[in-house]
Protein backbone atom coordinates (compact mmCIF):
# COMPACT_ATOMS: atom_id res chain seq x y z
CA UNK A 1 0.00 0.00 0.00
CA UNK A 2 1.21 3.48 -0.77
CA UNK A 3 1.62 6.07 1.96
CA UNK A 4 -1.63 7.79 1.03
CA UNK A 5 -3.54 4.53 0.98
CA UNK A 6 -2.24 3.76 4.47
CA UNK A 7 -3.24 7.25 5.53
CA UNK A 8 -6.79 7.01 4.19
CA UNK A 9 -7.18 3.52 5.61
CA UNK A 10 -6.63 4.89 9.15
CA UNK A 11 -5.59 1.47 10.43
CA UNK A 12 -8.98 0.02 9.47
CA UNK A 13 -10.97 2.86 11.06
CA UNK A 14 -11.46 4.77 7.79
CA UNK A 15 -15.29 4.83 7.95
CA UNK A 16 -15.33 6.10 11.53
CA UNK A 17 -12.53 8.66 11.31
CA UNK A 18 -13.60 10.10 7.95
CA UNK A 19 -17.28 9.80 8.84
CA UNK A 20 -16.58 12.01 11.86
CA UNK A 21 -14.26 14.57 10.33
CA UNK A 22 -16.11 14.62 7.00
CA UNK A 23 -19.52 15.49 8.41
CA UNK A 24 -18.00 18.03 10.82
CA UNK A 25 -16.12 19.69 7.94
CA UNK A 26 -19.23 19.86 5.74
CA UNK A 27 -21.25 21.49 8.53
CA UNK A 28 -18.52 23.95 9.52
CA UNK A 29 -18.08 25.02 5.89
CA UNK A 30 -21.84 25.20 5.22
CA UNK A 31 -22.64 27.43 8.21
CA UNK A 32 -20.40 30.37 7.16
CA UNK A 33 -21.77 30.15 3.58
CA UNK A 34 -25.36 30.26 4.90
CA UNK A 35 -24.46 33.18 7.18
CA UNK A 36 -23.00 35.13 4.27
CA UNK A 37 -26.14 34.48 2.23
CA UNK A 38 -28.37 35.58 5.08
CA UNK A 39 -26.42 38.82 5.53
CA UNK A 40 -26.66 39.66 1.83
CA UNK A 41 -30.41 38.98 1.89
CA UNK A 42 -30.91 41.29 4.89
CA UNK A 43 -28.94 44.10 3.23
CA UNK A 44 -31.16 43.80 0.14
CA UNK A 45 -34.27 43.91 2.31
CA UNK A 46 -33.12 47.03 4.19
CA UNK A 47 -32.19 48.72 0.92
CA UNK A 48 -35.68 48.02 -0.43
CA UNK A 49 -37.32 49.48 2.67
CA UNK A 50 -35.07 52.54 2.44
CA UNK A 51 -36.08 53.08 -1.19
CA UNK A 52 -39.78 52.79 -0.29
CA UNK A 53 -39.40 55.29 2.54
CA UNK A 54 -37.35 57.76 0.52
CA UNK A 55 -39.20 61.00 -0.35
CA UNK A 56 -40.33 61.05 -3.96
CA UNK A 57 -37.97 62.82 -6.30
CA UNK A 58 -39.65 65.73 -8.10
CA UNK A 59 -39.75 65.35 -11.84
Amino acid sequence: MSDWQTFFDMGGYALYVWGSFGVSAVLMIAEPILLRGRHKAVIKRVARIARMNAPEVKQ
Partner: protein
Amino acid sequence: MSSRLINWFKFSSPATFYPLAGRLLPWFAVTAVVLIGIGLYMSFFVAPTDYKQGEGYRIIFIHVPAAWMSMFIYLVMAFWSALGLIFNTRLSAMMAQALAPTGALFTFIALWTGAFWGKPMWGTWWVWDARLTSELILLFLYMGYIALTSAIEDTRRADRAGALLVLVGVVNIPIIYYSVEWWNTLHQGSTINFRKESSMTTTMLYTMLIMALGCWAYTIAAALSRVRSIMLERERNSTWAQQLVAEGKA
Protein backbone atom coordinates in the same frame (compact mmCIF):
# COMPACT_ATOMS: atom_id res chain seq x y z
CA MET B 1 -23.73 55.83 37.76
CA SER B 2 -20.02 55.53 37.21
CA SER B 3 -18.58 56.37 33.81
CA ARG B 4 -17.37 52.79 33.42
CA LEU B 5 -20.94 51.51 33.57
CA ILE B 6 -22.12 54.03 30.98
CA ASN B 7 -19.38 52.93 28.60
CA TRP B 8 -20.50 49.33 28.83
CA PHE B 9 -24.09 50.18 28.09
CA LYS B 10 -22.99 52.19 25.09
CA PHE B 11 -21.96 48.95 23.37
CA SER B 12 -25.36 47.43 24.05
CA SER B 13 -26.77 49.77 21.43
CA PRO B 14 -26.98 48.02 18.04
CA ALA B 15 -25.91 51.19 16.19
CA THR B 16 -22.59 51.16 18.08
CA PHE B 17 -22.08 47.41 18.18
CA TYR B 18 -22.84 46.71 14.53
CA PRO B 19 -19.72 48.33 13.03
CA LEU B 20 -17.56 47.03 15.91
CA ALA B 21 -18.74 43.46 15.21
CA GLY B 22 -17.96 44.00 11.53
CA ARG B 23 -14.39 45.05 12.31
CA LEU B 24 -13.78 42.14 14.70
CA LEU B 25 -15.32 39.45 12.47
CA PRO B 26 -12.47 38.96 9.92
CA TRP B 27 -9.87 38.62 12.69
CA PHE B 28 -11.76 35.81 14.37
CA ALA B 29 -12.50 34.15 11.02
CA VAL B 30 -8.79 34.15 10.04
CA THR B 31 -7.76 32.93 13.52
CA ALA B 32 -10.28 30.08 13.25
CA VAL B 33 -9.02 28.96 9.83
CA VAL B 34 -5.35 29.10 10.93
CA LEU B 35 -5.89 27.30 14.26
CA ILE B 36 -8.16 24.60 12.84
CA GLY B 37 -5.69 24.15 9.96
CA ILE B 38 -2.80 23.63 12.38
CA GLY B 39 -5.02 21.48 14.60
CA LEU B 40 -6.05 19.20 11.73
CA TYR B 41 -2.44 18.83 10.58
CA MET B 42 -1.41 17.86 14.11
CA SER B 43 -4.43 15.55 14.46
CA PHE B 44 -3.39 13.45 11.47
CA PHE B 45 0.37 13.89 11.01
CA VAL B 46 1.90 14.83 14.36
CA ALA B 47 -0.12 13.12 17.11
CA PRO B 48 1.11 9.55 17.64
CA THR B 49 -1.01 6.43 17.15
CA ASP B 50 -2.79 5.41 20.33
CA TYR B 51 -1.53 2.18 21.86
CA LYS B 52 -5.04 0.92 22.61
CA GLN B 53 -7.32 2.41 19.93
CA GLY B 54 -4.88 2.65 17.01
CA GLU B 55 -5.81 5.40 14.52
CA GLY B 56 -9.47 5.31 15.56
CA TYR B 57 -8.81 7.52 18.57
CA ARG B 58 -8.12 10.54 16.27
CA ILE B 59 -11.86 11.27 16.41
CA ILE B 60 -11.09 12.74 19.85
CA PHE B 61 -9.61 15.86 18.23
CA ILE B 62 -12.99 16.93 16.90
CA HIS B 63 -15.26 15.14 19.39
CA VAL B 64 -13.96 16.69 22.61
CA PRO B 65 -13.64 20.31 21.35
CA ALA B 66 -17.17 20.08 19.88
CA ALA B 67 -18.54 18.71 23.15
CA TRP B 68 -16.83 21.48 25.13
CA MET B 69 -18.22 24.12 22.79
CA SER B 70 -21.72 22.65 22.99
CA MET B 71 -21.75 23.15 26.75
CA PHE B 72 -19.87 26.43 26.84
CA ILE B 73 -21.99 28.14 24.19
CA TYR B 74 -25.07 27.25 26.24
CA LEU B 75 -23.52 28.85 29.34
CA VAL B 76 -22.73 32.01 27.36
CA MET B 77 -26.33 32.06 26.09
CA ALA B 78 -27.52 31.71 29.69
CA PHE B 79 -25.29 34.65 30.67
CA TRP B 80 -26.76 36.87 27.94
CA SER B 81 -30.29 35.70 28.75
CA ALA B 82 -29.88 36.60 32.43
CA LEU B 83 -28.40 39.97 31.46
CA GLY B 84 -31.30 40.60 29.10
CA LEU B 85 -33.91 39.77 31.74
CA ILE B 86 -32.20 41.93 34.39
CA PHE B 87 -31.17 45.02 32.42
CA ASN B 88 -33.66 44.74 29.56
CA THR B 89 -30.88 45.43 27.04
CA ARG B 90 -31.86 44.82 23.43
CA LEU B 91 -28.52 43.37 22.42
CA SER B 92 -28.52 40.53 24.98
CA ALA B 93 -31.31 38.52 23.38
CA MET B 94 -29.79 39.11 19.95
CA MET B 95 -26.48 37.68 21.20
CA ALA B 96 -28.22 34.61 22.63
CA GLN B 97 -30.06 34.08 19.36
CA ALA B 98 -26.87 34.51 17.38
CA LEU B 99 -25.17 31.77 19.41
CA ALA B 100 -27.96 29.17 19.41
CA PRO B 101 -27.56 27.67 15.90
CA THR B 102 -23.78 27.35 16.32
CA GLY B 103 -24.34 25.73 19.72
CA ALA B 104 -26.77 23.28 18.13
CA LEU B 105 -24.21 22.60 15.39
CA PHE B 106 -21.48 21.69 17.88
CA THR B 107 -23.91 19.57 19.93
CA PHE B 108 -24.82 17.68 16.78
CA ILE B 109 -21.13 17.23 15.87
CA ALA B 110 -20.38 15.96 19.41
CA LEU B 111 -23.21 13.41 19.18
CA TRP B 112 -22.40 12.39 15.60
CA THR B 113 -18.65 11.93 16.14
CA GLY B 114 -19.46 10.18 19.43
CA ALA B 115 -21.60 7.65 17.55
CA PHE B 116 -18.84 7.13 14.97
CA TRP B 117 -16.38 6.59 17.79
CA GLY B 118 -18.66 4.40 19.89
CA LYS B 119 -19.38 1.95 17.07
CA PRO B 120 -15.79 0.64 16.64
CA MET B 121 -14.79 0.98 20.32
CA TRP B 122 -17.95 0.00 22.23
CA GLY B 123 -19.66 -1.95 19.46
CA THR B 124 -22.71 0.32 19.38
CA TRP B 125 -23.65 3.65 17.77
CA TRP B 126 -25.77 4.69 20.72
CA VAL B 127 -26.56 3.80 24.33
CA TRP B 128 -28.98 5.54 26.66
CA ASP B 129 -26.35 6.27 29.27
CA ALA B 130 -26.36 9.48 31.31
CA ARG B 131 -23.68 11.33 29.28
CA LEU B 132 -25.18 10.60 25.87
CA THR B 133 -28.77 11.19 26.96
CA SER B 134 -28.05 14.52 28.65
CA GLU B 135 -26.10 15.70 25.58
CA LEU B 136 -29.08 14.75 23.40
CA ILE B 137 -31.31 16.79 25.74
CA LEU B 138 -28.93 19.71 25.16
CA LEU B 139 -29.54 19.42 21.41
CA PHE B 140 -33.30 19.48 22.08
CA LEU B 141 -32.86 22.57 24.28
CA TYR B 142 -31.06 24.41 21.48
CA MET B 143 -33.69 23.36 18.93
CA GLY B 144 -36.50 24.22 21.33
CA TYR B 145 -35.00 27.67 21.90
CA ILE B 146 -34.67 28.32 18.16
CA ALA B 147 -38.23 27.10 17.52
CA LEU B 148 -39.71 29.09 20.41
CA THR B 149 -38.00 32.41 19.60
CA SER B 150 -38.90 32.18 15.92
CA ALA B 151 -42.50 31.15 16.62
CA ILE B 152 -43.39 34.22 18.72
CA GLU B 153 -44.14 37.21 16.54
CA ASP B 154 -43.59 39.95 19.13
CA THR B 155 -39.79 40.21 19.53
CA ARG B 156 -39.89 41.40 23.14
CA ARG B 157 -42.04 38.45 24.19
CA ALA B 158 -39.93 36.07 22.09
CA ASP B 159 -36.78 37.38 23.80
CA ARG B 160 -38.21 36.94 27.29
CA ALA B 161 -39.63 33.48 26.62
CA GLY B 162 -36.35 32.37 25.03
CA ALA B 163 -34.31 33.72 27.94
CA LEU B 164 -36.50 31.84 30.43
CA LEU B 165 -36.17 28.60 28.49
CA VAL B 166 -32.37 28.95 28.36
CA LEU B 167 -32.16 29.69 32.09
CA VAL B 168 -34.38 26.75 33.05
CA GLY B 169 -32.37 24.44 30.78
CA VAL B 170 -29.05 25.46 32.26
CA VAL B 171 -29.44 22.78 34.99
CA ASN B 172 -28.65 20.28 32.24
CA ILE B 173 -25.06 21.55 31.85
CA PRO B 174 -23.66 20.30 35.19
CA ILE B 175 -25.61 17.09 34.61
CA ILE B 176 -23.74 16.55 31.32
CA TYR B 177 -20.41 17.55 32.83
CA TYR B 178 -20.60 15.39 35.96
CA SER B 179 -22.65 12.53 34.46
CA VAL B 180 -19.55 10.37 34.04
CA GLU B 181 -18.81 10.76 37.75
CA TRP B 182 -22.33 10.57 39.16
CA TRP B 183 -23.48 7.54 37.22
CA ASN B 184 -21.85 4.42 35.95
CA THR B 185 -21.71 5.31 32.26
CA LEU B 186 -20.38 3.50 29.24
CA HIS B 187 -18.86 6.85 28.29
CA GLN B 188 -15.39 7.16 29.76
CA GLY B 189 -14.45 9.71 32.41
CA SER B 190 -12.84 13.01 31.41
CA THR B 191 -9.44 12.66 29.77
CA ILE B 192 -8.28 16.02 31.00
CA ASN B 193 -8.52 16.35 34.71
CA PHE B 194 -7.42 19.28 36.79
CA ARG B 195 -7.16 17.19 39.95
CA LYS B 196 -4.84 14.54 38.62
CA GLU B 197 -2.43 14.15 35.75
CA SER B 198 -4.22 13.79 32.43
CA SER B 199 -4.13 10.42 30.77
CA MET B 200 -2.82 11.46 27.35
CA THR B 201 0.50 12.50 25.83
CA THR B 202 1.45 16.17 25.68
CA THR B 203 1.21 16.22 21.87
CA MET B 204 -2.34 14.85 21.97
CA LEU B 205 -3.27 17.36 24.64
CA TYR B 206 -1.89 20.33 22.67
CA THR B 207 -3.60 19.15 19.48
CA MET B 208 -6.91 19.02 21.31
CA LEU B 209 -6.41 22.45 22.86
CA ILE B 210 -5.50 24.02 19.49
CA MET B 211 -8.61 22.51 17.92
CA ALA B 212 -10.67 23.80 20.86
CA LEU B 213 -9.26 27.33 20.45
CA GLY B 214 -9.97 27.13 16.71
CA CYS B 215 -13.58 26.16 17.45
CA TRP B 216 -13.74 29.10 19.85
CA ALA B 217 -12.65 31.55 17.19
CA TYR B 218 -15.05 29.90 14.73
CA THR B 219 -17.94 30.32 17.17
CA ILE B 220 -17.15 33.98 17.82
CA ALA B 221 -16.90 34.70 14.09
CA ALA B 222 -20.17 32.87 13.34
CA ALA B 223 -21.99 34.58 16.22
CA LEU B 224 -20.71 38.04 15.20
CA SER B 225 -21.86 37.48 11.64
CA ARG B 226 -25.27 36.23 12.75
CA VAL B 227 -25.79 38.99 15.31
CA ARG B 228 -25.09 41.57 12.58
CA SER B 229 -27.82 40.05 10.42
CA ILE B 230 -30.23 39.93 13.37
CA MET B 231 -29.49 43.58 14.22
CA LEU B 232 -30.14 44.75 10.67
CA GLU B 233 -33.34 42.69 10.50
CA ARG B 234 -34.69 44.11 13.72
CA GLU B 235 -33.57 47.68 13.11
CA ARG B 236 -34.50 47.70 9.44
CA ASN B 237 -36.67 50.78 9.87
CA SER B 238 -34.09 52.77 11.82
CA THR B 239 -32.03 55.56 10.32
CA TRP B 240 -28.65 54.07 11.22
CA ALA B 241 -29.41 50.74 9.49
CA GLN B 242 -30.71 52.38 6.33
CA GLN B 243 -27.82 54.82 6.26
CA LEU B 244 -25.21 52.02 6.58
CA VAL B 245 -26.85 50.06 3.78
CA ALA B 246 -27.09 53.17 1.58
CA GLU B 247 -23.39 53.90 2.15
CA GLY B 248 -22.50 50.30 1.34
CA LYS B 249 -20.99 49.81 4.79
CA ALA B 250 -23.40 47.18 6.08
